[in-house]
């Protein structure tokens, strides 16, 4: 991994300089005559701070433009290894949230939910929170108070979330919103390979001969990754896309398999069946490096293409075609995302893809392997160091006595006092309903939009006796809290994130936070001090947390010990494991065929297909599936406040096939066993006739997650967002899109009003309608 950034030493603000230009760039059409200094951007004393985008797991490098007064006011592309200047609309607009008028700048507090928030001092907010923690834990026990973190936090902060829960709160109940992201892939990777990360770097995509993309709308969810796909195709690679919708990438694929939602493992088992039947397996690799292949081979024998074609609703020939194309290629890769992971059989789905890669010997080579594409910026790093309910730093198991001893030694706490594993994010909501959890602190998450089955989520949170939330905008969840702590946005602090390649990158501070705003680190340390654990939380800044994290991860699979801030600034990113400061990092895994299991082998796992948890019936004959749109990020707490992104995609819609008889823009009621909502129709042939799609970034009454089911994968505990039974019917009018909540005395960003009342669906990249655009 080499740094391609031609500009400066990253980490320090630099003046804008002509050397910023990409190598070889000259004036338009090579004609001179324009004085170069005429438009010199440095005329206002502007500086550029190298950092990364705050949003998805690609983690594009960018510069934030900072004016002479020290304020972020724009963005400039950066020639970083990951993105090579490219940015998506979210990345381009991200800087606008830094000095956004909706920013929270003072702690908000109220004693009861029926009161208005009032701005209070930090002392009052912290003291009141600690008093409530003490009261609830005193009355009901330590585990009655929970903590929910987020995967958009820097790894330093996610490390602190885990430590704060176990050491300061002494509660077992800590989890994070990465639980809603890629934990199925994590679980599958751990089972098969003993390591929880993608096997190959993005750059390997450019070397492959056949690229299989499953359940991933790359064009909208990870737009900058598309350049790798197109780069592979420039070399002649074939492209296979598995998705119920014809996405922008699927449109150009050699094979697009539009399978019925919830049938992925039946499909991949059938593909492997054909691979075996046609003698395309890599028996030498299987014999030398795997266990469990015989059982897998026997299982897939029960999935002939004829059977899976019926289950998946796809032509039998496509299954055979995919098998021949993938297994017949010299080097093949499979990348997947939430489309296969957001299921009650998410782990099985991922394992069925791993089985295909391993059985064909496509593992651990340049251009051959597998990867999972992370949704949240730090979805990968967010779980590596103890924020997940069952993990301690370094990916250690909280139930393993040796692992517990190691961490207690580093933390200086008594092993007997270290709690055991807690429950997952959705299960914690059910515990709130049952009053097993009575108090909660939420950091950087918005479950009111992001969790399935909204009615249950609202009920759980309403039952809490005390709820505090850290955020920089008043999210729908924060608006339900008793205390809201105003914290920094990403550009006001420094720290690391691990992207979808497990490449650790460093974000740099571009401006001072507004008066009244503190870092999440500072707030957690202040709370810990008041809870009597101040000696364990003496962290003046991110660097001091990172130094402890490095030590805490040393010797584990998730080894960060060799990664330092200085090295990250020099290299542009280092992939873990990296056990020493001389170690170059590990961009590609399993190059010698050895995995991270004790026996060094890949443990292939038998996968049987099961139907989705919400059964179809005459009343609910359709599949409802959900996903993202390119302009918005997750719960939309950030992007629904940025004018250009709101203008690009002002509201959700329901994508339906023309066979249902609706016209573009017609109000359509979508009904599931959880409730019903009305969306404008986006009529398109780009979706299966038996499937409807709603993007999920909005709150009720336009929330996809008011309709989705809170069924969980038994192993990863990820919710089954991607399929539930539904019906559609004509309605009179569409539900109005609510404006994001704002704190008292604040005003909504005026541009967010754009097109809010427009009844027609937006011009989404997906499934455009048949009517004229407005």
């Amino acid at each position, binding site marked *: 991994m080499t740094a391609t950034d031609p500009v400066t030493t990253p980490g320090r603000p630099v003046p804008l300089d002509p050397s910023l230009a990409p190598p070889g760039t000259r004036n338009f059409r090579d004609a001179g005559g324009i004085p170069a200094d005429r438009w010199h951007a440095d005329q206002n004393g502007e500086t550029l701070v190298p950092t990364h985008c705050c949003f998805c797991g690609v983690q594009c490098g960018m510069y934030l433009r900072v004016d002479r007064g020290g304020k972020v006011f724009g963005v400039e592309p950066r020639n970083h290894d990951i993105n090579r200047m490219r940015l998506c609309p979210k990345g381009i607009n991200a800087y606008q949230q830094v000095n956004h008028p909706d920013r929270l700048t003072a702690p908000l507090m109220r004693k009861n939910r029926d009161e208005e928030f009032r701005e209070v001092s930090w002392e009052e907010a912290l003291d009141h929170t600690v008093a409530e923690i003490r009261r609830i834990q005193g009355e009901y026990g330590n585990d009655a108070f929970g903590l929910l973190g987020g995967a958009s936090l820097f790894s330093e902060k996610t490390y602190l979330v885990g430590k704060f829960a176990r050491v300061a709160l002494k509660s077992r109940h800590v989890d994070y919103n990465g639980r809603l992201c890629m934990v199925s892939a994590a679980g599958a990777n751990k089972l098969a390979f003993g390591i929880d990360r993608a096997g190959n770097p993005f750059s390997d995509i450019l070397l492959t001969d056949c690229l299989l993309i499953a359940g991933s709308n790359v064009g909208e969810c990870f737009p900058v990754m598309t350049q790798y796909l197109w780069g592979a195709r420039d070399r002649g690679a074939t492209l296979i896309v598995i998705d119920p919708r014809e996405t*922008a990438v699927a449109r150009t694929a050699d094979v697009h398999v539009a399978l019925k939602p919830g049938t992925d493992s039946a499909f991949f088992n059938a593909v492997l069946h054909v691979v075996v039947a046609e003698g395309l397996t890599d028996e030498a690799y299987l014999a030398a490096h795997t266990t469990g292949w015989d059982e897998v081979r026997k299982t897939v024998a029960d999935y002939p293409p004829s059977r899976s074609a019926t289950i998946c609703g796809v032509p039998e020939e496509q299954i055979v075609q995919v098998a021949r194309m993938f297994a017949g290629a010299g080097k093949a890769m499979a990348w997947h995302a939430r489309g296969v992971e957001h299921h009650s059989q998410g782990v099985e789905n991922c394992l069925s893809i791993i089985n295909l890669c391993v059985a064909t010997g496509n593992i651990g080579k340049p251009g051959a392997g597998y990867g999972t594409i992370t949704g949240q910026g730090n979805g990968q790093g967010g779980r590596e160091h103890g924020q997940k309910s069952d993990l301690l730093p370094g990916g250690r198991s909280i139930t393993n006595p040796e692992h517990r001893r190691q961490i207690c030694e580093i933390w200086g706490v008594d092993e007997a006092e270290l709690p055991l594993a807690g429950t997952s994010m959705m299960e914690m909501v059910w515990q709130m309903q049952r009053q097993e959890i009575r108090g909660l602190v939420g950091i950087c998450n918005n479950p009111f939009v992001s969790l399935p089955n909204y009615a249950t989520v609202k009920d759980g949170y309403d039952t809490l006796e005390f709820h505090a939330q850290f955020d920089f905008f008043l999210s729908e969840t924060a608006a339900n809290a008793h205390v809201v702590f105003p914290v920094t946005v990403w550009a006001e602090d420094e720290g690391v994130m691990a992207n979808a390649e497990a490449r650790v990158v460093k974000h740099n501070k571009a401006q001072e936070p507004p008066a009244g705003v503190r870092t999440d680190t500072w707030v957690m340390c202040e709370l810990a001090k008041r809870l009597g654990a101040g000696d364990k939380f003496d962290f003046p800044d991110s660097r001091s947390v990172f130094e402890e994290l490095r030590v805490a991860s040393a010797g584990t699979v998730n080894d960060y010990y060799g990664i330092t801030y200085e090295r990250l600034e020099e290299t542009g990113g280092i992939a873990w494991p990296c056990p020493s400061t001389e170690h170059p990092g590990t961009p590609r895994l399993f190059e010698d065929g050895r995995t991270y299991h004790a026996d060094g082998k890949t443990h292939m796992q038998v996968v049987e297909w099961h139907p989705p948890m919400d059964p179809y019936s005459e009343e609910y004959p359709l599949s409802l599936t959900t996903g993202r749109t390119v302009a918005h990020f997750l719960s939309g707490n950030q992007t629904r406040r940025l004018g250009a992104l709101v203008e690009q995609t002002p509201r959700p819609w329901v994508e339906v096939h023309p066979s249902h008889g609706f016209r573009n823009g017609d109000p359509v009621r979508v009904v599931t066993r959880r409730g019903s909502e009305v969306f404008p129709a986006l009529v398109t042939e780009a979706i299966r006739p038996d499937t409807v799609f709603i993007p999920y970034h909005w709150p009720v009454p336009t929330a996809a997650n008011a309709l989705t089911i809170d069924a969980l994968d038994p192993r990863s505990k990820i919710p089954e967002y991607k399929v539930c039974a539904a019906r559609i019917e004509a309605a009179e009018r569409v539900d109005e899109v609510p404006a994001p909540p704002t704190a008292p005395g604040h005003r909504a960003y005026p541009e967010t009003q754009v097109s809010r009342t427009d009844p027609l669906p937006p011009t989404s*990249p997906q499934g455009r309608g048949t009517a004229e655009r407005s």
Partner: protein
Amino acid sequence: MMGRTIFIDPGRCIGCQACVSACRECDSHRGKSMIHLDYPDEGHSVASLPTVCMHCEDPVAPCAEVCPADAILVTADGVVQQADTTRCIGCANCVNACPFGVPKIDLQAKLQMKCNLCYDRTAYGLAPMCATVCPTGALFYGTLEELQAERPGVQVADSFTFGSTTVTTGVAMVVPADKVQWPVPGGLPVVEINGVDVSEANSNKGGGGRREGVR
């Protein structure tokens, strides 16, 4: 051969509108985007393509030629600038003249606006913002040789026919390698005049047919 310019490759466009957001960030555009994102096959396909000013060369920029106020200037290096705010009268002649449907009129400001190829950036040695950020390379900035080095076998066109008129442009369009035509037919065919079907007659004239150049 053409120098450094923008190449548009609709086959790569994912419709993300990063170009639209990026264009708005350019200092010379004063917070407004000058890029259209078009959807050629709505309801049937998710196909999309970005439209920037083609910076016509021959005949010299129809928009500039018809401007009664001489508000649209063409620089020595071939960039067709957006309207000079001190001259533009907002008459929309340029909108009607452009064969590619590019210029927009801000009626309130009585001002024409269009892509000026990020003159604030290109003159300074930077690539235009849209082509810099485009996640997929649907907008590429460089020379034809650079494009072809990156995308072996790629074919481009910078000449388009509209009926009997041929327009040569500074910006080029990637066309399917197996359907190379020179020049590429631009615009939709006229199929009916005063109720009379003339599609048969047109099809014999050549040019002006379907936009085969656009996938």
